[in-house]
């Protein structure tokens, strides 16, 4: 029972990342009709927003290490600590959560530039061409990041206070020893909040209403004299923010390197297809579902039973779903078929 709960929890944070990326992918597909293979790169760029801020905050100066007395030793001390003392170190400690503030405007800008500069010319091209051009863009973006930050993963730790694990067992009356890293718990809650904000935004604002109407029937909305195009551009920006935030918050779980996006992209695409192209609830459901399934497949008991299942479970589920229910779990009929 404890192991069961733990596996679900283990799956949920990864599922949260899948859900956030898939949400943006499916939103872009539903509104702009574009298959965006560069979406994983947006996740990666978000992660490197956190890396950048961390690097910025820890810009440091060499000063003499007074604790070493028998020879001249120097140590790197961040300017922030020199200027603000303990407050400075605290700011550095909170680099990752602070990056959210940086990532929102940066990702919005990147999203808008990408849509206006490239994607808008591909609305009328075939899906294959959309896939290819965004795939090319993804390569370009990750290579740029590689040339700036290097090829190795950059560790970006979570704040000290949440570095440990939560004793879930004690909290919920489960067995002792059921522990779960605080940050992954935070990630889960964070992703749920972001998902809730996106849904609320689409559900309760006029802007969201127009967008949803546009997703359902673009032409009619266009006939009403509404500039649906500009709204869709903003939607792209929002999707970029969501993917970016997913990346920012994921950095303490997995130190980002330049191709972290590609790994997530393939899986997120599978998630989108399993959920149903263009279905927002589908993307979220499938994201968490596949995250949990993957986590269960990684249990030793399961692996002993079916060797290698942990390696293929997500793809296997995708194949079965596509064959049995081609429009995905919650997708509309006929989308992208033919």
């Amino acid at each position: 029972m404890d192991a069961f709960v733990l596996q679900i929890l283990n799956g949920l944070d990864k599922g949260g990342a899948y859900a956030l990326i898939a949400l943006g992918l499916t939103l872009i597909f539903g509104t702009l009709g574009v298959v965006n293979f560069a979406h994983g790169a947006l996740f990666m760029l978000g992660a490197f927003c956190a890396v950048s801020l961390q690097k910025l905050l820890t810009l440091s100066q060499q000063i003499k290490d007074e604790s070493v007395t028998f020879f001249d030793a120097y140590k790197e001390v961040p300017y922030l600590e020199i200027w603000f003392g303990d407050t400075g170190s605290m700011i550095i400690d909170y680099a990752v959560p602070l990056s959210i503030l940086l990532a929102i405007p940066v990702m919005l800008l990147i999203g808008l530039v990408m849509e206006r500069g490239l994607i808008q010319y591909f609305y009328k091209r075939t899906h294959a061409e959309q896939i290819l051009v965004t795939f090319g863009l993804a390569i370009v973006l990750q290579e740029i990041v590689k040339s700036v930050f290097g090829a190795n993963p950059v560790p970006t730790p979570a704040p000290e206070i949440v570095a440990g694990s939560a004793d879930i067992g004690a909290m919920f009356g489960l067995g002792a020893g059921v522990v779960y890293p605080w940050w992954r718990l935070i990630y889960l809650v964070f992703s749920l909040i972001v998902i809730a904000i996106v849904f609320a935004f689409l559900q309760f604002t006029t802007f969201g209403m127009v967008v949803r109407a546009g997703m359902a029937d673009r032409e009619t909305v266009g006939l009403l004299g509404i500039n649906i195009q500009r709204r869709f551009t903003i939607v792209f920006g929002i999707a970029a923010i969501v993917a970016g935030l997913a990346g920012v918050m994921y950095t303490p779980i997995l130190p980002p390197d330049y191709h972290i996006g590609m790994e997530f992209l393939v899986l997120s695409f599978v998630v989108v297809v399993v959920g149903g192209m263009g279905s927002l609830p589908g993307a979220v459901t499938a994201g968490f579902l596949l995250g949990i399934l993957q986590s269960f497949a990684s249990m030793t008991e399961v692996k002993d039973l079916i060797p290698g299942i942990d390696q293929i479970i997500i793809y296997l589920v995708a194949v079965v779903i596509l064959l049995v229910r081609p429009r995905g779990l919650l997708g509309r009929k006929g989308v992208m078929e033919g």
Partner: protein
Amino acid sequence: MRDATPRSDLFFFLLFAVAVLTMPLWTAPFGASYPDLLQKFAIFGIFAIGFNILFGLTGYLSFGHAAFLGVGSYTAVWSFKLLSMSPIPAVLFGMLLAGLFAAAIGYVSLRRTGIYFAILTLAFAQMSYNLAYSVLTPITNGETGLQLTAEDPRALDALLGVDHGAGLPTPNLFGIEMIGFPAFYFCAVALIIAFYLAMRIARSPFGTMLRAIHSNQNRLSYTGVNTRPYALTAFVISGMYAGLAGSLLAVTDPLAGAERMQWTASGEVVLMTILGGAGTLLGPVLGAVVIKYFENIFSAFNNATLHATFDFLPGWLADPFVGLLSLFVGDGWHLTLGLLFMIVVIFLPGGMMEGINRTAKAVRRRREARHGASGDQDSKDGSGLSARAYHPGE
């Protein structure tokens, strides 16, 4: 473009064969005339030709063809280990097994079209890749890759009394070691045969049906054609081409690793085909050659060679210039590749072949205008039964 007649095709084919066989000569001025690179041209040319039979003709975009490449490589290495160091059984078994693999994956994937088909093939390829790294280690030797050992049984060779002496044997065709230029010529002959077969397919009624699938699958089924076995045949053929390419990789270097099956490798063959021109005969080969060439040249550059190259510039200009260029070469080669990819898809969706045809047409038009001839020629655009450049699509 003029109609393709049997005569013009034969001429075209002979020209191609001569061009391939004389490659060591005419690639020399480009600094590409060394066997390792020439082998890659031929092998990836085969891979791309095969991929084009599926993607260029039927329009089905597979994102999993690297899996068949990998299967071909593993099978060939096993053939070297168990049967014989001759490349013939290695290549035959590589194609056969890749074909069987393609039949199974194609049978399932072709139940869907468009993006769903792409995702299905991608999923299968990723499964193969992940399994090759994990539970299939007894067959694939996991991360180390499958290698030859001196103790391999090589039953056929033992039976025929072929002695390889001590140490690691090299694949050899009736005593000719498959390294350097002999290995290139082995691959070149395979490429020429592969090209000829692809040409026959493209010009045949079968090929016409494949293009009809691309054009309007719905109409085709109301015309009495069962489209799925046609698409499946194309899928298996292109899988066998990939298997051939994979086994040739093993012939030239008897080592097979799972990274050959990764989806980025599948993406590379898509790029080769698109870059050259999907749906054209020559395009995929051109695309493969260009990409392998630039990969080789660009990744060989480093800051030192760049500085040496731009020695003639004044220092204040050379440093930033070299700094900028260094982003695109060496480790940055992938950046160039990505940019190239985007530029082709954005500006030249028909690939290099479209560029060549456009240029040729413009030249012809200018010449006609100078001679005061009428624009009669234009009405023959894309005429007859020729294999024109088709836009990649669903």
